[in-house]
């Protein structure tokens, strides 16, 4: 069998080399699909059609299958994230301690529901299944930084700090 030649990189953006590296490490095996999508998301911030197409072609996975995988897992995002990301944990302990009030406050302030980004691209509002800091519920993450025992007022303060930047 002739050696497999993967397709050329979509552009000379260096990040594609990182993506390609993940695939090469596994010998371009199909089972590297999820690992590779992780690399795309950590390099580009999200998965767009061009990236999914490139990964699918490189790993010889049918396009629809790759798209099915990318949309199955909630960790993957198909839209670019906002400049800042506010994540409210919606685990059970946080729910019992009032995470719904945090989410409602954020929704009202930003005018979007979780999973979306404000029209100006400033803030993405997300919910998490559980970040595992249940003892400090309710928990929120401001650009990935975990803070516990939050109140709606503190959440609004955080959004205001971002707004005046």
């Amino acid at each position, binding site marked *: 069998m002739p050696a497999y030649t993967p397709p050329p990189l979509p552009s000379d953006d260096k990040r594609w080399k990182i993506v390609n590296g993940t695939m090469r490490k596994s010998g371009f095996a199909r089972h590297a699909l999820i690992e590779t999508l992780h690399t795309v998301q950590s390099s580009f911030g999200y998965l767009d059609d061009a990236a999914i197409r490139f990964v699918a072609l490189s790993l010889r996975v049918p396009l629809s299958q790759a798209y099915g995988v990318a949309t199955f897992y909630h960790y993957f995002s198909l839209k670019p994230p906002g400049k800042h990301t506010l994540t409210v944990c919606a685990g*059970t302990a946080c729910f019992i301690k009032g995470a719904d009030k945090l989410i409602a406050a954020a929704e009202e302030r930003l005018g979007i529901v979780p999973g979306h980004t404000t029209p100006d691209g400033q803030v993405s509002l997300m919910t998490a299944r559980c970040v595992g800091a249940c003892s400090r519920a309710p928990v929120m993450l401001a650009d990935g930084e975990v803070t516990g025992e939050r109140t709606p007022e503190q959440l609004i303060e955080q959004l205001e700090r971002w707004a005046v930047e």
Partner: protein
Amino acid sequence: MTIEELEQIAESVRRENAKFDYEVSVCMDLACASQGSDKLRDALVQIAEASGKKVLVRRTGCMGPCSHGPLVRVDPYKTFYGHVQSGHAAAIVDRLGGEPVPDLQCDLNEHFDSQMRVVLENAGYIDPEKIDDYIARDGYKALVTVLMEMTPNGVVHRVTESGLRGRGGGGYPTGLKWATVAKAVGDVKYVVCNGDEGDPGAFMDRSVMEGDPHRVIEGMAIAAYAVGASKGFFYVRAEYPIAVSRLTMALREARRRGLLGINICNTPFSFDIEIRLGAGAFVCGEETALIASIEGRRGTPKPRPPYPAVSGLWGKPTLINNVETYANIAPIMRNGGKWFFSIGSERSKGTKVFALSGKIANTGLVEVPMGIKLREIIETIGGGVPAGHKLKAIQTGGPSGGCIPADMLGLGVSYDALMAAGSIMGSGGMIVMDDTSCMVNVARFFIDFCRTESCGKCIPCRAGTAQMHTLLTRICNGSATMADLHLLEDLCSTVKETSLCGLGQTAPNPVLSTLKYFREEYIQHIEQKRCPAGVCKFEAVEVTA
């Protein structure tokens, strides 16, 4: 690597530690770290150096009582300081050798005395990024001894003898599972660790992976030897980046020490582990879905049989256990199956780690012998519900579990007792609710979770959980009739009995258990448009399907 070499490493760590007069351990687990324990440690290191005292400042994983964090333990005194900030560093160092700092000291004797630590034996005592710290506490001794002195059959026998049951939720006998994979025919076999802790309200596995990663790796290696596997996969939630980096580092260190790789300890046994990241799908806790995910596909489950023990990853015999199950293996090998068997209740052996959270004074991680009364966990260890409120229910088992009412605190915690009470052991989330929680709303929360986590493959789970959510929403907003309640019960039965995998089969549990113990609350919602906990607002909200 030989036992003697392990001893030498342990000895050198002890010698190094003996140079210090005091050990100050700082918990740097997520809950404490989110309150600035990293700054605290830096301050302690700086001030200790300047003080001229011989102080070892150590970073550790979760110590347990997170609600008192950031936590510091000072040895040899075994003094705990709670809510410590970097500004307190000077006082702590200053008081070493004298009376403890009065304002910071917290009395956790009662909290710890009722616990029994097997899985968490190293929690708070080792630096998770130092393999030598683990070795100094008997780490890898079990693996090396097993390789040198035991047959694979002997290992399986010992696990069987211990009575250990799967800690991921199902409670399947671990020894039986190992024996099945060991007997399965296959040139290639796999060992998988399920670290995709998905139960929203549980963080035991995260703490173990982050605080004592080598313990799990050692357990996996012993399992691989027992069943005849040479390749392992560690499936970790991507939402746990610290666990991923700690495990990556731990694997590298274990390889460097020759405890993973080819011909481990100069025996024919070779084994290595690869990390695979989960991507946010609760259903991947289901074995067949987890396999699909490791293979790079959508995490949808398949009908069993065939069981993964016979036909798993790429059709090969595959052993899948949860983090806490593997974490029990090294102590069982070191202390014997009979020792483990002597702990716990009749059909549930050993200890169980629980993540206590919700409306309780001491939130955090606790480890207790199986069979312990719920009351002891909630009142003695947990410190009870904070003043002014009344305990209402305890939720165990996450979205697959149920709510146990306050009048059942006499219940002994075991697989069978929890099952009989309409809940399950689950992976170990224990969420305490007081009179401000509405049980209908709690049931709705869990069904909402199952609805969004359903993979969509089978109809009863896909459409059934969505319909149950609609009906529960009607009850919560006051637009439901008694006919809706009967329909809900009818749906529960179909979803439970006909769903393809465990997610769907157990999804109705939170509804069924609240209906069993709090039926009156449902009826008050429907007939009087009244929510006793004052949570539900009975506006004419449109029901979105």
